C-alpha cells in the first residue's frame, strides 16, 4: 500500500457540491452502484467462461471516475488506461454495449474488437481505454492541444495508475503540457499497487507523494483521498478551473483501493502482496459507495428504500445487459479486416487503390 494516509476533510459544502440537487446527489450514488454491479456481474461472467483475455475491475475506485466525470462540460474530455469500465459507464455508455464488448459480440462498443481494455465513445468525449501502461498520457496532452488549437475552453481528464508514472512517455507529456500550457489534468489513481508491486517498490518520490513530481515541470498538483465523491469533485474542480481559466495542467494523486485482484487472474492479491487485514480495513473504511450512501442518508436525501431500489435497478440493468450480450451475434469473419483503414472501410478512391491486405 502507499506510504501515506491522508485524513480527508469534508468538501460537502464546497460550492461545486452545495450546488448539487438532491436528485443529482442520488444520481451520483446510482452511477457508482451501477459500476459496482456491472463489475460484479462481469466477474461472474468471466468465471463462467463468457469473457476472454484480461478483466481489470474498478470495484473500490468508483468515486474517482464518477466524481471527475460528473464535472465534465461540453468541451471536456476523458481518457484512461485499461481499467476503464467505470469511466465508460460514467460518461454514459450503456451496459449493453459494454457487456457485449466483453463477450466479444458485434454489438459491443468496439464491435468486439477491443475487449475490456479498449472501450471508446468519442461521441461522449471518451477516448478509451488503453492497454499499454501510460501510452494514453501523450494522447491526453494531444487532446488538450487540439482544444487549445481550436480555441475551445475545455479540459482533458487523463487517468493513469500509480505504476504508470514511471513510464518515459508520461514524463515527456508532462514537460510538453507545461511548456505549451495545455489544459490537461493527469489523475493518478493510486490504488497502492501496480499488479503485485506496492507503490513503495516501484516509485521513488518526494515527501508530498507522486503528484509532487509535478514541481519538476512547474506544474500544479494536489493529493487527496478519493473515496468521498464530494472530495473528488471539489479537488478535481479546482484543476478543471485551472485548465479552463489559465490553460494550465495539473497532476492529481488520488488515493484509492481496488477490492479485487489486478486482473481476474491474480492469485496473490489476498495474503500475497497484500494482507487480508489490509483489504478488509480498506473495504470497511474507504468503500466509496458505503461512504456516500451514509453521507446521503445523514443528509436525508437518500433513504433505505430508494437505496434498495437503486441496487435492484442496477441489478436488473446489468442482467438485461448480460441477456443482450448473450443473445447478440459474434462478428462475421469478414469483420476481421474491417476497421483497419478508414479509406478502405469507406471505399474511397484511396481505399480502392493498391493492395492493402496481404494474405
Amino acid at each position, binding site marked *: 500500500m502507499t506510504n501515506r494516509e491522508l485524513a480527508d476533510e469534508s468538501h460537502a459544502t464546497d460550492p461545486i457540491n452545495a450546488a448539487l440537487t438532491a436528485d443529482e446527489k442520488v444520481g451520483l450514488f446510482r452511477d457508482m452502484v451501477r459500476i459496482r454491479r456491472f463489475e460484479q456481474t462481469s466477474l461472474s461472467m468471466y468465471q463462467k467462461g463468457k469473457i476472454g483475455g484480461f478483466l481489470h475491475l474498478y470495484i473500490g475506485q468508483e468515486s474517482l471516475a464518477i466524481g471527475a466525470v460528473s464535472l465534465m462540460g461540453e468541451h471536456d*474530455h476523458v*481518457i484512461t488506461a485499461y481499467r476503464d469500465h467505470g469511466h465508460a459507464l460514467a460518461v454514459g455508455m450503456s451496459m449493453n454495449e459494454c457487456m457485449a464488448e466483453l463477450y466479444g459480440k458485434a454489438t*459491443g*462498443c*468496439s*464491435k*468486439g*474488437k*477491443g475487449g475490456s481494455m*479498449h472501450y*471508446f*465513445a*468519442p461521441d461522449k468525449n471518451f*477516448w*478509451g*481505454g*488503453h*492497454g*499499454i501502461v501510460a*501510452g494514453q*498520457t*501523450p*494522447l*491526453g*496532452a*494531444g*487532446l488538450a*492541444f*487540439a*482544444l487549445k*488549437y*481550436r480555441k475551445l475552453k475545455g479540459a482533458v481528464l487523463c487517468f493513469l495508475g500509480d505504476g504508470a508514472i514511471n513510464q*518515459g*512517455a508520461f*514524463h*515527456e*507529456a508532462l*514537460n*510538453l503540457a507545461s*511548456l505549451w500550457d495545455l489544459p490537461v489534468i493527469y489523475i493518478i489513481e493510486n490504488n497502492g499497487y501496480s499488479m503485485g508491486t506496492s507503490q513503495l517498490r516501484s516509485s521513488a518520490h518526494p515527501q508530498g507523494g507522486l503528484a509532487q513530481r509535478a514541481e519538476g515541470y512547474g506544474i500544479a498538483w494536489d493529493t487527496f483521498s478519493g473515496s468521498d465523491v464530494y472530495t473528488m469533485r471539489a479537488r478535481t474542480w479546482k484543476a478543471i478551473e485551472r485548465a479552463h481559466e489559465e490553460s494550465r495542467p495539473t497532476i492529481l494523486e488520488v488515493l484509492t483501493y481496488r477490492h479485487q485482484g489486478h486482473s481476474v487472474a491474480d492469485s496473490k492479491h489476498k495474503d500475497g502482496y497484500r494482507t487480508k487485514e489490509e483489504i478488509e480495513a480498506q473495504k470497511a473504511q474507504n468503500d466509496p459507495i458505503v461512504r456516500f450512501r451514509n453521507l446521503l442518508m445523514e443528509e436525508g436525501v437518500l433513504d433505505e428504500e430508494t437505496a434498495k431500489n437503486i441496487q435492484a435497478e442496477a441489478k436488473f440493468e446489468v442482467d438485461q445487459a448480460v441477456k443482450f450480450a448473450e443473445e447478440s451475434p459474434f462478428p462475421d469473419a469478414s469483420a476481421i479486416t*474491417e*476497421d*483497419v*483503414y*478508414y*479509406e478502405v*472501410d*469507406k471505399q*474511397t*478512391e*484511396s481505399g480502392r*487503390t*493498391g*493492395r*492493402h*491486405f*496481404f494474405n
Partner: protein
Amino acid sequence: MPTLTYRQALNEAFAEEIERDENVFLMGEEVAQYDGAYKVTQGLWKRYGDYRVIDAPISEAGFIGLGIGASMLGLRPVMELMFWSFAYVAFDQLINNAGMIRYMSGGLIHCPIVIRGPANGGTSVGATHSHTPENFIANTPGLKVCCPATAADAKGLMKTAIRDNDPVYVMENTLLYGDTGEVPEGEHLVPLGVADVKREGSDITFVAHGRAVITSLAAAEQLEAEDGTLAEVVDLRSIRPLDVDTVLASVRKTNRVVLVEENKPFCGVAAQLASIIQLEAFDHLDAPVQRVSAIDAPAIYSPPLEAMQLPRPADLVAAARKIL
C-alpha cells in the same frame, strides 16, 4: 514544368496544405525557427507563425503521441522525425496508438496524421542514425507508408498523405533533398498504392523504392550501354498500400526481376515482394528473383565503406547479369 529540388517540392506541399486546411500544422524538432535540420520547412515558420509551425523538445514519444491524440479530435498534424531512426524512442506511439486505435475502437476513431522525415543511410552518420524501417511499418496493418524517390513524387505523395484519413508515414532521404526534378504546376497529387514505371524495358525488371530507384535507373543505363539489355525500372513509391499489379505486369513482360532496396535483407520489403512474385507469377519467372540490399551489418561510419555497403549500380548490373 518548373524544376524544383526534392526539398522545395516538399516545402511547397506543406505550404499548400497549410493554406488549404486550417487543421494542418507542422510539428517537430527544429522545424520552425531553425527552418528544419535539413531545411525542408524553410521559411514556413516565418510565413505561418507559431500556430501552424511548432518546434518540439527532444521528446519523440511525447510529441508524436500528442500529435496522434490531436488527430483523434480532427486535426491533421504533420509531424517531423528529424531522422526516422528516432522513431524507435516513439515506437509504441507509432505502432500501438496510431496503428491500432481505429481497430480497437471498432472504427469509431481514425487518426489522420502524417509522420515524416528522412530514413536513409549513406551519409556517414553511423548505425543508430541510418535506419530504414519501412518494412516494420508495412508489417503493421492500420498504417500506411511511402518512400518518394523524386521531387514530383515527394510533393504529390506528401499532399496525398496529408489528406488521407489514415496514418501515413512518409520516408524521405537526406541524399535526395538536393536532387532536382520537374514538378507539375498547380495542384499535384500522387495517389498511394500506385507504382510508377520510371523506365520502360523488356528484358529485365528492377523493382525499387526511395533512393534505390535512382540507383536502378543508373544500372539500367549501364546495362543498355554495355549489354544492350533493356531494363524496366518500377518505382513502388508506396509500400503499403502496394501496387502489386504494376510489379506483376512488368515481371510477366520481362520474366526476370531484381529487387533493390537500401534496407538490410532479412525481412526487407524485397522479401515480401519476392514472396508475392514467386506466388503470383511463378510460371512467368525464367530465373529466381534476385535481391540487392545493403550489406547485412549495421551501417558503417567509414565513408568509402558505407558507399560499398549500400547498393551501387555495379551491384545491380552484376545481379541482373546473373539471370540474363
